[in-house]
C-alpha cells in the first residue's frame, strides 16, 4: 500500500492526466456530482456518489455502431469503429465497480460486444472506499463491502491522507507511475477507517435488508405474487430508474439518415416502456404491471438464474432517490419478499 497527503492529490491527478484522459466526480453548478474530465483547477466532488452511474464510460447512452452509404440499389457498409484511447475513471464507489462485473457478464459473453469490450480493455478504474454511506445505501444486501472497493486500484481517503492499493496489472502499472508522489505505508489508518465505517453500516436503515427470498429458481413462486398489482399501480413508466441504474443494459438499435448517409446507432432503452416489446403481431406485456414486474424479476430472479446466483442490483440507492413516485427495488424486496424483511 502507498499513500500521499491530501494536498498532493491534485499533483497526482496531474500526473495521471499527463498520460491518460482522467475522469472523476465533479460538482456541477447545481451542486450535483457528475463524472467530468479532470483539468487544472477541477475539484473532486465531496458527494457520496454521482447522480448518473459510470456505466456511460463503457456503455454510453448513445453510440454509433456503423454507417451505410446507399446509392441506387447498392449499399456500402462502413465500419466506423475506432480503437479507444486508454482512460482512467477515478472515484468509483464499490457498488458501481461491482456493476461492471454485472455488465461484463452480458456484453463480454460470447459473442462479445466489441464496442463495450474495446472501452473496457482501455479503461482503468480507481475506486474509492465509502466513509459516509447514505440512508439509501444497501450494497451489503448483495455482498458488497463499501470499505473494500474493487477496481484496478482501490483508494481510501482520510482527513489528511489518501491511500492507494493496486489490485490488477493495469493498476500496478499506473501506481508505478505515481512512485515519486506517493510513499510506501502500512494499512493501519485504512483498517481504522474500515472498522468505523463498518459500524456505521450496521446502523443504516436498510442494514437488515436481505435478498434471501429472491434468486435463481424463484420464477414460479414470485411471478404471480398478488403484490405486483399494488406495487406497480402508480408506476408512470418514465424509465428514470432504468436510466440511472448502473446495471440496466437493455438497448435499442436505430437508423438515422444524416442526409449524407445512414448512421446505425444504439441507445439505452427501458423495459418500462410499452414500445419495448410491441410487435406487429401483438404486445406480450400489455400493462405497466407486466413491464414493472419484468424489471424486478430480471434483476432478482432471471439474471441470477443465468449468472451463478449473482443479483443484477448493487444497492447504490439511485432509484430510491430518483423515482418520481418513490417506488423502488427495496419496496419490492420488502413487499414480495415477505414480512420478515421489513
Amino acid at each position, binding site marked *: 500500500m502507498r499513500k500521499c497527503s491530501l494536498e498532493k492529490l491534485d499533483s497526482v491527478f496531474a500526473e495521471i492526466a499527463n498520460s491518460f484522459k482522467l475522469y472523476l466526480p465533479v460538482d456541477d453548478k447545481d451542486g450535483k456530482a457528475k463524472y467530468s474530465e479532470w483539468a487544472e483547477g477541477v475539484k473532486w466532488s465531496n458527494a457520496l456518489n454521482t447522480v448518473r452511474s459510470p456505466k456511460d464510460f463503457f456503455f454510453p447512452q448513445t453510440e454509433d*455502431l*456503423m454507417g*451505410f452509404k*446507399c446509392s441506387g*440499389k*447498392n*449499399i456500402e*457498409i462502413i*465500419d466506423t*469503429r*475506432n*480503437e479507444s484511447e486508454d482512460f482512467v475513471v477515478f472515484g468509483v464507489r464499490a457498488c458501481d465497480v461491482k456493476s461492471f462485473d454485472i455488465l461484463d457478464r*452480458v*456484453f463480454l*459473453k460470447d*459473442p*462479445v*460486444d*466489441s*464496442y463495450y*469490450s*474495446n472501452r473496457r480493455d482501455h479503461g482503468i478504474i480507481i475506486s474509492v472506499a465509502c466513509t459516509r454511506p447514505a440512508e439509501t445505501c444497501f450494497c451489503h444486501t448483495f455482498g458488497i463491502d463499501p470499505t473494500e472497493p474493487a477496481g484496478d486500484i482501490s483508494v481510501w481517503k482520510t482527513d489528511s491522507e489518501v491511500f492507494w492499493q493496486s489490485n490488477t496489472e493495469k493498476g500496478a502499472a499506473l501506481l508505478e507511475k505515481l512512485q515519486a508522489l506517493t510513499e510506501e505505508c502500512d494499512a493501519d489508518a485504512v483498517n481504522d477507517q474500515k472498522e468505523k465505517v463498518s459500524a456505521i453500516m450496521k446502523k443504516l436503515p436498510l442494514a437488515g435488508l436481505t435478498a434471501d427470498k429472491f434468486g*435463481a429458481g424463484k*420464477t414460479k413462486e414470485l*411471478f404471480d405474487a398478488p403484490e405486483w398489482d399494488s406495487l406497480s399501480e402508480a408506476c408512470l413508466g418514465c424509465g428514470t430508474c432504468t436510466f440511472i441504474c448502473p446495471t440496466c*443494459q*437493455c*438497448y*435499442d*438499435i*436505430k*437508423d438515422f*439518415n444524416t442526409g449524407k448517409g*445512414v448512421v*446505425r446507432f*444504439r441507445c439505452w*432503452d427501458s*423495459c418500462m416502456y410499452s414500445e*419495448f*416489446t*410491441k*410487435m*406487429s*403481431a*401483438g404486445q*406480450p*406485456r400489455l400493462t405497466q404491471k*407486466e413491464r414493472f414486474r*419484468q424489471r424486478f*424479476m*430480471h434483476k432478482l*430472479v*432471471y439474471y441470477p*438464474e*443465468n449468472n451463478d446466483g449473482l443479483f443484477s442490483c448493487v444497492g447504490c440507492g439511485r432509484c430510491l432517490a430518483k423515482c418520481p413516485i418513490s417506488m423502488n427495488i427495496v419496496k419490492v424486496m420488502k413487499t414480495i419478499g415477505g414480512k420478515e424483511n421489513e
Partner: protein
Amino acid sequence: MNNRQETLIPKIGVITDVRIDTPDIKTFRVVTPDGVKPFEHRPGQCAMLSVPGVGEAMFSITSSPTNTEYMEFSIKKCGCVTDWLHQAEPGQQITIRGPYGKPFPVDDEFAGKNLLFIAGGVGLAPLRSVINYCLHYRDHYGKIDIVYGSRSKDDLLDYKEIIDDWSNSNDVHVHLTIDREQEGWDGHVGFVPNYVKELGFDTDKTAILCGPPIMIKFTLDGLYSLGFEKTQIYTTLEMRMKCGIGKCGRCNVGSKYICKDGPVFRFDELDELPDEY
C-alpha cells in the same frame, strides 16, 4: 479495432427474386453480391435483415439448409421494414446477419419419428425450412402429415410447392383448410384447431406447430385431448428483437432469451417460462 469481431455489423445481401405468394406475403430470394448463399443455417433459425435508414428486423429463414444456392424469406407486410421490402425489386441490396437461435432438433429428437406439421397463415414460413429438410432426408423420418390453414385460398403460402412437391412426396399427407367457403375451393373449410381434432391423429407423432397465438392455443387443447404429451409438441416463438444475441433485453422471457435460447421450444420447456410470449 477492425480485428475485433462484431456480430451486429451485417453483410450485404442482394434480393435476386421476389415471388408474390398472397395479397400480403412475398417470398424474397437473397444471395451475397458474389452470388452465393450468405451463410449456413439449420431449420428453424432466423436472420436479421435490414434496410439502412428504415430499420432492422428478425425473420425466420424459410428455405431449407439443403438449398445450397440461396436463402429465402417469406415476409408479411406489416410494418416499416416489411412495407419497404414489399416495394423492393430484384437487384436491390439489403443487409443480412445471422444465423440466430436454436434450430428444430431435426437430426436428434425428430429422427425416425412420424412428424405432424401444423401451421396457420404465415406460420408456415419457419416450418417450410423444416419440411423441406425432412423431405430431402426422407428416409430419416416416418410418416409426415402437414395440416395447413389460412383465411382464404388466396392466403395459402407456397401453394404451388405444396401441391406439386409436398403432396406428391412419398408417404406425405397434406391437409389444407381455409376459414370460410370460397368459390373454386373444394377442399376442407374450417379453422385449423377443429380440423386437427377431426383428423384425429394418433399420438405416435411429434407435432410441430406455428401460427397465430389463438391458433396455437386451441390446437394445443386439441392435441392434448387426442392424448399428445407436451414433450411431443414443438413450436417457434416470435418476440421483438434488436440484437439477436441475448444482450439487448427485448426478447427476455423468464431466464430465457427467445433469440438465442429459442425461438424453437418444446412445450414442456415453455411450461417453465412465465406466460409472456
